[in-house]
């Protein structure tokens, strides 16, 4: 829907596959608790943002998550301690990622997609928990590899 995108060269099938594979990989690493690999997908200036609702501004609204690269690293380090009790033991979970729409940016790609995540809260209630929403990834090529510079997740049930 970005009209400026029209001026850029169309996305090739190979690019679409590469980008799609990247977001699938990101989902899989998170699902499987492979957080070190997941962290390695980020660029050095990565920002991970989960606002409470659409249309928010991180400078004036409190978010669920607004992590700069340092905080992303801390998050992963915390999970690795073995004492992150809210994830001890880790929830079995899978996220479905669909409706992948890719726009070319000057320095990479913007990827819109919808997701639904189901987890079993094995730490306490043993109930199912569902999350759904829309993700926006911004990807950039670093040393020939796609990396994630920005991920925004707007939850349907975030507020």
């Amino acid at each position, binding site marked *: 829907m970005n009209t400026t995108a029209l001026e850029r060269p169309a996305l090739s099938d190979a690019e679409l596959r590469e980008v799609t594979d990247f977001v699938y990989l990101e989902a899989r690493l998170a699902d499987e608790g492979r957080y070190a690999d997941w962290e390695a997908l980020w660029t050095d200036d990565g920002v991970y943002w*989960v606002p*409470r609702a659409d249309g*928010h501004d*991180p*400078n*004036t*609204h*409190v*978010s*669920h*998550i*607004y992590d700069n690269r340092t*905080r992303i690293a*801390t*998050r992963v*380090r*915390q*999970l*690795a*301690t*073995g*004492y*992150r*009790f*809210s994830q001890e033991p880790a929830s079995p979970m899978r996220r479905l990622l669909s409706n992948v729409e890719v726009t070319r940016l000057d320095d990479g790609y913007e990827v819109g997609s919808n997701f639904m995540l189901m987890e079993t*809260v094995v*730490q*306490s*209630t043993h*109930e199912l928990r569902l999350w759904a929403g829309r993700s926006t990834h911004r990807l950039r090529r670093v040393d020939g590899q796609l990396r994630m510079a920005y991920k925004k997740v707007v939850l349907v049930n975030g*507020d």
Partner: protein
Amino acid sequence: MRIERLTPASYRDLIQPDRVHGSLYTEPYVFEDELDKIFHRGWVFVAHESELPNVGDYVTRTVGRQHYLLVRGQDGAVNVFFNRCQHRGNLLCNKPTGTAKNFACPYHGWTFGLNGELQDVPHAGGFEKDWTKLGLEVPRSGNYRGFIFASAATDGISLDEHLGRAKELIDRACDLSPTGQLRLTAGWVRHEYAANWKMLPENDTDGYHVGFTHQSFMRAIRSQYDSFVSDEKQIKGVIRDWGNGHTEIDFAGGYTKPLEWLGSTPEKVPEYVAALEEAYGKERAEELMHLGPPHACIWPNLFLAEMNIVIFQPLAVDKSVQWHTPMLLEGAEGLDFRLLRQSEGALGPASFLVADDASIAERTQRALESGDPWCDLSRGLNREEIDARGVRSSHMTDETSNRGFWQHYLHVMGG
């Protein structure tokens, strides 16, 4: 042990000076009784003035089963109503916040003014009652330094009596603003717990768990983990029971530098320092920078959570919400970004800290149905002090705060 009906006598049996019984967290009847006596009849925090700054601004909020509508009237004062149309009871306003000229009920078009008066009854020929008696229902309410409280009971003690000495704690928060005003404008994060509401204030004024529940964060940031875990004497914080169920952990004694509670230094935030000095003078400004914000629960549903404000909302005997918003300071807008990020780090379902507290509350909720579940509350009974004002204090890790909570609970529930 499974209890059908609790009488005041049985509350006394279940709440002892050094322990309380787990059934108080798990019995549906107790929960209903609490909604009535604590959340409906008692004073509860409903909103902060800064959430609805202009005429016509409104906020809706639910406490227990009471649905409130707060509106800034033409006279600039905040009116507190039950959010219920006086005709057939429709929820008058179903948006969390907004701005309105009046409130037209979508069911039959009855319209109420910002001051609650019934302004229009469509097709008036069929309606002969006195409109002036059908304005929105008004609960008792009161305001202390912008914090608005309400009670759904038609009479009872005054808000002033209810707050008692806890007003000092609110003052401590407000005084961090150069203008004395807070700005709760960043929105509220919802954090649902599958646990009884009482575990939230208990945990939030528990100074004992920090080094254990939160060890993953301390290890991740290589922080004061060792001192917290190993040496009781290194811990300088103080726990306090202010009476009326208001309780506190005072971290000030543990701070070694000004603005430590802000994760900053006076050098890094010179505008804020200057504003404080201009407002309060150099001496008081320095004192404030050392003291920092309160960490205190105001009975029953308000938590002054250092640089956050928190609301506890009971949903069911085993379901609660902890809401939080960063405590932004008027006259110190330059701190906003830092405070927003600090808030996200500490509180909410994705935070580094409270996510773990919530998980433990949910575990406890389950375990408290097993065997004969007494919860020990004796910690620190051996070393408490009472000052001249009657405020009881002890070592930061002691259960003085939780004992204060339960003694007031017993008083309110009919002890």
